[in-house]
């Protein structure tokens, strides 16, 4: 029974994995990748690690892949042109890496033979939420904290990249409600095609950012 399920999910994972690289349409590749993640989650459940399985689905299939699919849909990425492959010199490298990978798998199959255990025969609480939490906050506290600092750095970095103030022109103008008006409509001295926005929540904040003091009077003008 377990062997059948393993063959099913492992086959699905490999099939979806092949589809990820074989598909020409980026959205199909993304969907195949979701399939890989879900099959792997099923395998984790069979290995008595339900917490990892749930996190795999929530984080990878449910959050990261949603973003990936979102971007593919937003940019409307077209089907990749099936042209002459450009990076031909990488083929021998790929073959070498594949050979190493196969050698590793073979090594594991040979050397771990004696320690094979039936996952259902020995009930263990290693994969359960409680034991993972206890270990994370006691024995592995330092790596855990370092990882969280790394994530914090990534968040701060993303924020800094996203809101670089220097890129915006000082006289750009935005109307709250996400309507961007050409600057020439409000300022007769501006260049006629300056549409770049400035970040602001309210009209008053936008006016302050732009250095316009008599904003209320200006809006009454037209």
């Amino acid at each position, binding site marked *: 029974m377990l062997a059948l399920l393993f063959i099913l999910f492992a086959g699905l994972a490999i099939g979806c994995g092949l589809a990820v690289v074989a598909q020409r349409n980026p959205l199909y590749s993304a969907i195949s990748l979701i399939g890989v993640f879900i099959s792997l989650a099923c395998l984790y459940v069979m290995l008595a690690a*339900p917490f990892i*399985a749930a996190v795999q689905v929530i984080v990878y299939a449910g959050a990261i892949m949603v973003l990936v699919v979102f971007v593919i*849909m937003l940019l409307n990425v077209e089907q990749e042109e099936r042209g002459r492959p450009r990076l031909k010199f990488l083929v021998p490298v790929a073959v070498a890496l594949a050979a190493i990978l196969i050698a590793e798998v073979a090594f594991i199959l040979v050397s771990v033979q004696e320690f094979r255990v039936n996952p259902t025969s020995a009930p263990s609480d290693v994969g359960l939420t409680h034991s993972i939490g206890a270990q994370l906050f006691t024995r592995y506290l330092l790596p855990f904290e370092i990882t969280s600092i790394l994530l914090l750095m990534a968040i701060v970095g993303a924020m800094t990249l996203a809101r670089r103030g220097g890129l915006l022109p000082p006289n750009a103008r935005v109307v709250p409600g996400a309507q961007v008006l050409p600057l020439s409509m409000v300022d007769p001295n501006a260049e006629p095609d300056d549409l770049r926005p400035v970040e602001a929540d309210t009209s008053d904040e936008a006016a302050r950012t732009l250095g316009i003091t008599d904003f209320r009077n200006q809006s009454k003008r037209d």
Partner: protein
Amino acid sequence: MDTAIDIALKLVAITVAFTVVLLIVAYTVLAERRVLGLIQGRLGPNRVGYGGVLQPFADLLKFILKEDIVPDKSTRFIYFLAPVIATMAALMTMIVYPFGPEIAIPFTNITIPLTIARFDIGLLYVLGITSIGVYGIMLAGWSSNNKYSLMGGLRSSAQMISYELALGMSLIGVIMMAGTLDLGQVVENQSAWHGTHWYVLFQPLGFIIYLIAAIAETNRVPFDLPEAETELVAGFHTEYSAMKFALFFLAEYINMFTVSMLATTLFFGGWNVPFLDLILARGTFLFGLISALGFIFKICVFLFIYIWLRGTLPRFRFDQLMNFGWKFLLPVALLNIFLTATLIYFFPNL
């Protein structure tokens, strides 16, 4: 042989649970139309059967008999797959909820739990499957080859990403108090104080955040931007007709039902009926039956709140939706975690 019997029993349980839930969902649709009629000063459907009780079946028949139109330039496979993903993800969460306590079947020695599957990570399972459900809507929007559908799908995914965080954070308070992710254990914990030890008493803030985020997750008014009729025709399901449309419709109402179930399980004591254990002994058939009915009743109250909101609130604008989710709900949810930790520190026995 034992495994075969086990699997057969589970299949029977799943069939029963799905039938009951789908019936309730079908009548939620009718209730929605009648209550909306009441709110808007009109009657609503009342002609099929007494007071309209057969209306859900008439609707179903209509959906089956309608012509199934597939747009010429759609991406066929994904177009067919999308409603299936939406409905399956909505139904799959059903199996971990405890519908009632263990009950003894009368005249036999058999005791059965009213849960289909109980495992260590029940809550994470629910969150994981819910996050898969959004693909149904996104892929429907993309594969229809229609700009309104695509806009609906994009809006839906952006909304899901934003509100899933607040939703998860709002539940952490309850998890901290219960000390487990097993939904059955969470409900057992709330049996204290004669079944009135409900977590909403200690987590009012978390509950309100959950309620708001859950409405956004199910794309209901006032967060129904993915299908905003005034701007997007019908949003992501513009190009869907007949039974495929019915599947999306069904998925939406099943999702309503499951988030109500989660709210009841985590915040309102699950199947615990207050002070019932003073009258009846725990483990008897009657106790189990009344508890299960109490669970369904609480869910129905939440469903009514949903319909009520739909009848009374206008729709958000998209920038308001995003600002509200990221700049208000998420910080407040984090504050709730902090407050809960303080509470547990000073009153560890709550």
